């Protein structure tokens, strides 16, 4: 099984008529994802390579039964698009948009908690989600994946791809690869993904890829200790990052001595996770954990 999405997931792409949206929307469809609709109020009634465009998400949901949204619009428009998807009745929203102001992220996150508590937001600034063989929403290069028993959850996109690739090369497949994104207020946390992977009968081990900034990894370590019976293989990027400098991702910053890779690594080790020292060690540790 996969988490959050499956072969029945129907996707509406907000931004399908844009250059990026079209590229990734069509890529996702070519992989086999059911991309059923796009939205653009100015282009309602038209289509993108056969995918119908609707004025609103609500309309797209009504007409196509879409149950997931892929938000790929500019940063200033993204918060409204996420809320439109929630209001339109979509329970799972993936937002890949980078550079959404932090206050907007905080407002969207809390607005969803208040008014749409059952809606799951993945991202923003995330690579998306891939359930190999079933569904791909976002940027993940599915060609480096294969179906199997390992779940991946990562803040970084490329490090998740690297992990997918190494596992596939070693003949180990993946159940779902979840990109939670590099921003300060992610809609879905490590803990949310760990909980879902723990409950998924086909996931046998989980790869968790974190980085400097915030305390999500430390909180995940507490959760792993208390609730996760499956082996967790972890890697944290940014061991040598200087304090106070933002390392590419908005959320990747050590502020006032908090959020260091060392602290996160130690917390995960103490929770029983196998910790890789560099991303290319992940494959070997997963093999070891699965006894292969």
């Amino acid at each position: 099984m996969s988490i959050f999405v499956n072969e029945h997931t129907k996707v509406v792409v907000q931004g399908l008529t844009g250059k990026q949206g079209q590229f990734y929307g069509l890529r996702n469809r070519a992989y086999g994802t059911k991309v059923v609709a796009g939205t653009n109020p100015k282009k309602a009634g038209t289509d993108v390579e056969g995918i119908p465009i609707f004025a609103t998400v609500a309309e797209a949901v009504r007409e196509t039964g879409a149950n997931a949204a892929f938000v790929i619009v500019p940063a200033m428009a993204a918060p409204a698009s996420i809320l439109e998807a929630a209001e339109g009745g979509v329970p799972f929203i993936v937002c890949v948009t980078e550079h959404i102001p932090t206050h907007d992220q905080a407002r969207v996150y809390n607005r969803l908690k208040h008014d749409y508590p059952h809606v799951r937001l993945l991202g923003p600034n995330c690579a998306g989600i891939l359930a190999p063989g079933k569904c791909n929403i976002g940027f993940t290069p599915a060609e480096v994946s294969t179906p199997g028993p390992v779940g991946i959850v990562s803040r970084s996109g490329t490090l998740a791809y690297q992990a997918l690739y190494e596992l596939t090369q070693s003949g180990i497949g993946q159940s779902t690869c979840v990109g939670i994104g590099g921003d300060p207020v992610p809609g879905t946390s490590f803990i949310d993904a760990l909980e879902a992977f723990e409950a998924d009968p086909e996931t046998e081990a989980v790869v968790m890829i974190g980085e400097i900034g915030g305390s999500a990894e430390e909180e995940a370590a507490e959760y792993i200790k208390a609730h996760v019976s499956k082996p967790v293989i972890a890697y944290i990027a940014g061991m040598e990052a200087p304090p106070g400098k933002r390392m590419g991702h908005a959320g990747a910053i050590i502020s006032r001595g908090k959020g260091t890779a060392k602290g996160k690594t130690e917390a995960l080790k103490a929770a029983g996770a196998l910790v890789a020292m560099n991303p290319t060690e992940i494959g070997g540790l997963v093999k070891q954990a699965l006894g292969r």
Partner: protein
Amino acid sequence: MDLMEYQGKQYFARFGIPVSAGGVADTVDEAVAQAEQIGYPVVVKAQVMTGGRGKAGGIKIANDAAEVRFHAANILGMDIRGHIVRRLWIERASHIAKSATRFKENGEPKDEEFYASFALDRSAKKYLGMLSVEGGVEIESVPDELIAKIHVDPILGLSEEACRAWIAAANLPEAAREGALQVLMALYRCYTEGDCELAEINPLILTTDGQVRALDAKVTLDDAAHERHPEWAEFEAVAVAAGDSREALAKEKGLQYVGLDGTVGIIANGAGLAMSTVDIVKQVGGAPANFLDIGGGASAEVMVNALTVINTDPNVRAIFINIFGGITRCDEVARGIVEAMSRITLNAPIVARIDGTNAVEGRAILKANESERLIMLPDMLSAAQKAVEIAGK
């Protein structure tokens, strides 16, 4: 973007937070002119993006023009924790009230200097306000029980009622409470409407005539919100002029660059992989010269831009290119590297590791073009070791 004190105070003033009258000076003469206009005594304050200015001698009281001249001459050009002082803020000296309840170890009453800030609590995903009667020192050194914290839901906002309760919880003196309420409500507006990542007042003072005022300002603006704040342009201009020119060049080319001080230049795609690359260079005994994330793709154009930036760093003795080819396949990446090398004359050799989609084809292209200036190694560890070895020669 971090603001200097005077910019932070200008920003505070926009939201109605009381600050002392003052002006900027870049020369001794300007400092005297500002002081004459403001009226004595004044405080001469070094404007640098770091703490510990007072201890370093970067903040001095002056009672007349001669004293302003003396202190300004001393402070301009001063090195405070690696920051050279090029600008001063001259402001009217404040008369800070003495506490009736808090005393120093020698029995003298403490100054009424408080601490107030708003920032995001990433864990709670709500705003966190912190308020303490122990201001004027680094907040990290204040015992937790002396800091009153309030979580604010961004949707519900901060009510006056909640703010009053917060002030009471912090045990601010009665005389400061009404003034603090006005300041904190304004600080909250500044933090939210002003798109701050951090809005901090330390110290927030009570004056002898009963006013509550921001004596310092520490503001970090959220660069992502730049588009809706045309008024940030003047701050941005100052930051660019004062900042690292290589970082500015990278930014102009749409690359994420952070300068470090080593000898191994680093190019990787994706923030996570770029951080990992910095880590591994350090792990094998090298010193990274930079963090550089070229984003998800890795076209020849982007590679040229990245190499151009690295090439301006005279300390770089080897360049480690670490790319994971996903949608941009490794053969395209390899062709990009080869093409980039034909378009730009590099000061240091490249060690490249590429992996991912079409890795075999990509590596074959690099192998075919291998020389002393371009070395291909298939895995991250051996490539890092090679780059460090070259840089150490």
